[in-house]
């Protein structure tokens, strides 16, 4: 099974990287880049309600993960992805703030920084993620899925991103892509089919 192989691959990479294997660390980060990218884009665009170039955000997140790797204390994939997401969440916050910086005034900023619901960066993830084995497989498959999405043509990526990940209704997808609703629906169906084929191919390899 591709899953279990891949599963052990990431797991192995984590263990090797933690023992100081720089190559394993780079490989580990590289194979999660698409995953971080998909989630970053989904988050930022859902927030901004517009197409946003999130590559700086992904870059920054990968860089911090790279630099701060020795701080990562977990062992499992779930912990690893949780850790990545945590860095991403932190950066996303900054990213959106910068994006809107011109519109915000000082008072607002102060209020935001002291609001009681503010996330503290050192949140304890293990309490949230019970990591049953099913959960790990799901994490693995999400990485695979993100890689498969990255292989699609730009149009396909866009329509999957808007309809499935940002959960916009077709009318809005059509508007954002500047096409008719019918055209977007067809595009979506083809993108889904292509994605499924890419996934099953990568599973066979």
């Amino acid at each position, binding site marked *: 099974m591709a899953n279990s192989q891949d599963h052990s691959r990431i797991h192995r990479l984590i263990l090797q990287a933690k023992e100081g294997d720089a190559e394993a660390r780079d490989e580990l980060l590289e194979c999660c880049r698409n995953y971080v990218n998909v989630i970053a884009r989904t988050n930022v665009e859902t927030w901004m309600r517009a197409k946003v170039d999130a590559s700086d955000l992904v870059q920054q997140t990968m860089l911090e993960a790279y630099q701060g790797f020795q701080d990562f204390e977990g062992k499992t994939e779930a912990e690893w992805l949780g850790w990545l997401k945590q860095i991403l969440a932190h950066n996303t916050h900054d990213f959106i703030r910068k994006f809107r910086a011109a519109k915000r005034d000082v008072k607002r900023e102060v209020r935001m920084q002291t609001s009681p619901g503010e996330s503290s960066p050192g949140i304890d993830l293990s309490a949230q993620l019970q990591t049953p084995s099913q959960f790990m497989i799901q994490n693995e498959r999400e990485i695979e899925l993100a890689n498969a999405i990255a292989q699609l043509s730009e149009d396909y990526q866009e329509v999957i991103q808007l309809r499935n990940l940002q959960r916009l209704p077709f009318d809005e997808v059509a508007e954002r892509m500047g096409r008719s609703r019918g055209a977007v629906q067809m595009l979506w169906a083809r993108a*889904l089919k292509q*994605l*499924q084929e890419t996934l*099953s191919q990568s599973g066979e390899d």
Partner: protein
Amino acid sequence: MPTTDNNDSEGNTPEQGDQLSAEVLEFLEQHCEALQTGDAISIPPGLLEKHSELRELVDCMNMLESLASSPVSDVHATRDGSGGSFSSSMMQQLPREFGSFCLEEELGRGGMGVVYKARHRTLDTHYALKMIRASEFASDEEVRRFYQEARAASRLRHPNIVSVHDAGEQDGLPFLVMTYIEGRTLADHFQDGHAKIDTTVTHIIQIARAVGYLHQQGIIHRDLKPANILIDETQTAFVTDFGLAKVFEGDGERTMSGTILGTPAYMAPEQAWGKPDDISSQCDIYSLGAILYQLLTGRPPYDEESPLDQMLRLRDSEPKLPSKLNPDVPSSLEKICMRCLEKKPENRYQVAEEFADDLERFQHGEPITLQSLGLWARLRRWTRREPALFVHLAAFLVIAIIVQIAEWSSTTRRDSYAPVMTILVIWAAISFLFQYLMTREFMFSRRTWIACDAALFTAAVANAQGPIESLVTGYALLIVASSMWYRPKLVAVTTGASVVSYSVLLAYRGAADTPPHYPYLVVGLLLVIGGIVTSLVRRIRQLLAVRSRL
């Protein structure tokens, strides 16, 4: 009609043979919808037998959904329930607590807001609760105007307007509490099929009276559309979402949200194209007319495929008469409707009440008060409705006058007179035919028309007197004129037709006294003109796309 510029092209040609069938597509769409609202639907066994790949597609979609729901924010959101920071209101699960309310389901999303069906926990009554979507990142100014608008809206008392009861802030999220209307939006309403004309008129009268009341209170709705009108079980219409468009208007926000410009189907031309300053209560009157049009005919006034073409048509053409789309529409009702859709605000009804009054007179079978427009305005309207025909006829008239004057001023009878005049008459007749074909949306009617133009022009020139080289400019005119459809491919076709016709003309008439390489120069010039015009049309479309999508 050939949509020559549909950008759904080369990059992703449909895979032949394994195209997804319509029923699979329909199921996938339903499944996607269900997945995102939180229930799962199973694959009908019959469908699965026919399409074995369906299971894998559904698996794939489920995975996408789990990826979508895994965003970083969930970690915090599920923890404290309110999620004051990054976790957006829209990324959280329902039902959930929100102050003294329990948010039960999402009713809809507007440009900047989300509306929830919410139950007040103490009163045990349902309300519609509206929030700014991106509130943490809205500036203080935006929040201030949200409340200012809420204050204005809370003073409104009208049986056909959704009332605002309360406004406040919870976990840093400004919100607005409105009456919850059990019913459906007008948009859902007519998806079931044709509405009856008398119910339609009743609804529109109610809406128009409500809009008239808004105008009296100094509020312009600006975003009247079927999705913003609710119909309850007693068939009463309610205007909702008023003024909120105004809150976010006029600053950088419009470029962020994407929906303020959005689909211009119900927007007045001056609103879709003009500056925010041009927006007056007349825009709402236009939107009322557009909604009436939609209800009468089953489509908006301009139902072009892309918002882009809608914008272009909104600017320089007229909608089809409703009675052409639905023969049951009486002519007086049609007149009322079309009057609202006038391009110039001053030609529309001046106040919404007049519009409602006329509809009521129509309902009671009384004569409507509508003054007919002047001859000039009617002519303008006709030229917009059938611009190509108008341009042709105008050109023929000019040519005929010149040829006629030449005939009178020459002492001898010229051989070219009769054939040229005959061709002009035939050409005019053919233009009427093509105009008819175009309104019937025959395939390739524009291209055939253009090709005919090139051929007939060639025939006319071939019969003209003396050296004809100077008349060749007519081909350039044809190419430039074809750009008025804003279709790059059409310009290319015209350029091709012109070059071919010119070659035929040369073969027929020869080019005495001109150096042999001149014809090549002419062909070269025509091609360059064609290229420039094509790229101009492309550029216009791109600019518009940017404007309407951002």
